[in-house]
């Protein structure tokens, strides 16, 4: 996780959530890319953990996005969140 970007709260919240639901928290990284007034957050998880993060019919991923966007509003930015398998 990159420090010092404009989406600190969102990145911290996203990292906490994903580490809390995967089997292998050590493998979780959140990469922040500043792109003007939008910030992209790329989440990478260890092998086999992507399913847990996405959830049935994408429900968990949708919940993660909802909560992370709420956090981003505290940072005053819009965020796009991508989940990636390593």
């Amino acid at each position, binding site marked *: 996780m990159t420090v010092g970007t404009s989406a600190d709260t969102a990145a911290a919240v996203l990292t*906490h959530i994903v580490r809390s639901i995967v089997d292998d928290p050590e493998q979780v990284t959140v990469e922040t890319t500043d792109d003007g007034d939008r910030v992209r957050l790329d989440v990478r998880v260890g092998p086999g953990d992507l399913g847990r993060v996405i959830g049935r019919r994408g429900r968990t991923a949708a919940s993660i996005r909802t909560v992370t966007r*709420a956090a981003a509003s505290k940072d005053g930015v819009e965020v796009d969140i991508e989940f990636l398998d390593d």
Partner: protein
Amino acid sequence: MEWVETTGKTIEEATEQALDRLGVDVDEVDIEVLEEPKNGLFGKTRGEARIRARVKPAEVRPKVDRRRGRDRKAPRSNEAKPADDNAQQEKSGASERSAGGRSRSGGRSQDRRPPREERSGDPVDPALVGEAAVSFMEGLTSAFGFEATVELQRDDTDLEVTVNGAELGLMVGHGGRTLVAIQDLVRVAAQRRLGDHDTHLRVDIAKYRERRRASLEAFAKQIAERVKESGRPVAVDPMSSADRKVLHDVLAEIDGVSSRSEGEDPDRRVLVSPE
């Protein structure tokens, strides 16, 4: 976990009734079709659909298992069929009809899953699930940068995590939507990760649910008065299944009115009628 039995003109309708009674979303329940609706001549309904439903025990399989999950999916959904089909054929006596009913997709029925015989492992101590939920919520509030107290109330397998502090509105969100998402994630982090199947876990933030419930109760009483005075049914605005459940619960206690839900989510609403 308790089963509720409901009926309706269609399986979807019966399912909606069950969801209201249970106060949860469709992907949180196990549904079994007890009886397919029987069609009479000219589209008249001769027999109602009957289903039973229960709140799905939270699901988890060990990681090794999860990887095999994909290959097993097809055989697994087939496994439940024989018993189901037999039951239907006995009742309807028409195998093509039950086949037709089964192929119905796109509706709620596709969410039907086999009863979970394959639960693995020992029951998880509810206290551990509670601890995991509290530590998840503490981490979350501090990641948000809020000072808050996180408390756990436990009554056997009923767990409620309450979060209180200043400025928590952001974690509740418009219409409680962020709160619902947070509750979802607490369940994943605490129940599913630990392999817990038995606890009921709820989250309240800044007393949102408590207040929402109180205002819904007052609202339900108002509507009941209106219906009794006018003798005419009233349809209220669409609301979530959890909110509808509160209305149904309150209205069930009031003499002279009855309530049911109609329509499809997100426009599903409670209809209050004179009795």
